[in-house]
């Protein structure tokens, strides 16, 4: 498996929150774990950090917590994807 930088892992989590959310706009931990291919302990730390930075928002659901991508998170992801295209144009990965 190829190496993923911390930045790429964060972008992958935010992408899952954007592209694989339920009808109410939130995504469960199990979905993030599966789609972003992360261990539970690593994901817990990252989720905490992303909430602190205001990129994700935690919400209580009947079956545990779910996460919603915030406006700030969406803006960050848009910026990331723009510069990812730029880097890929020069054969680089962020």
């Amino acid at each position, binding site marked *: 498996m*190829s*190496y993923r*930088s911390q*930045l790429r892992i964060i972008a992958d989590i935010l992408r899952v929150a954007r592209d694989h959310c339920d009808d109410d706009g939130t995504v469960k931990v199990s979905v993030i774990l599966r789609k972003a291919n992360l261990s539970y302990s690593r994901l817990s730390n990252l989720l905490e950090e992303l909430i602190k930075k205001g990129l994700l928002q935690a919400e209580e659901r009947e079956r545990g917590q779910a996460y919603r991508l915030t406006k700030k998170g969406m803006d960050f992801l848009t*910026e*990331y994807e*723009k*510069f990812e*295209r*730029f*880097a*890929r*144009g*020069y*054969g*680089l*990965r*962020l």
Partner: protein
Amino acid sequence: MIEAVIGSNLIIGSQGVVSLVIASYAIKGYRRLRSNTLKLFSLAFLFLFLGFAIEVFNNVVMVDIWVTYIMNAFHMLGYVFLGLSHVASVRKEVKEEVAALVFIPTVIMKSLGLYFLLYAAVETTIASMKREHRLALASSIALYLIFLGEFLDLIAIKGVPLALPGVLRFLGFIILLIPLVSVLGTSKKVEVEK
């Protein structure tokens, strides 16, 4: 004679402008995302820009021979950081103490710079093939052209026109603009669609 100097300065100056444009976009990306890869990539083009700026300045004012050492140092640091940006793109940590390279003799430094430039070109080719990315293929062709220009400049083969290294380098820098122009074009389209 004056026309030749002006022409040569225009070619060198345009390479400097291309470097500055790429560096500013990479700096913008680094400031927004704090990406290590973009930091090294922006440093690479910033050093190349400084090298070209000093080259033009020296052509106009004719300062002294030591200025060419500084110019070469900036160019080679640029290529070293370009190689390192590819290292950072596939590995976890990159030590950036390579700035000390500026103090090593010019020929060794230039060879080392060329080694990193070729490494960046090969990595870009591999990346373009793995991910079937046409823009990266254009970048790799550009880097090979710049490498060839720098290499011919270093070894000075008899019979090779004096202007050839400069022309190859110039072509390389112009082709390097293609991915940036393409990204800027796509971003504008996305904004319009929004």
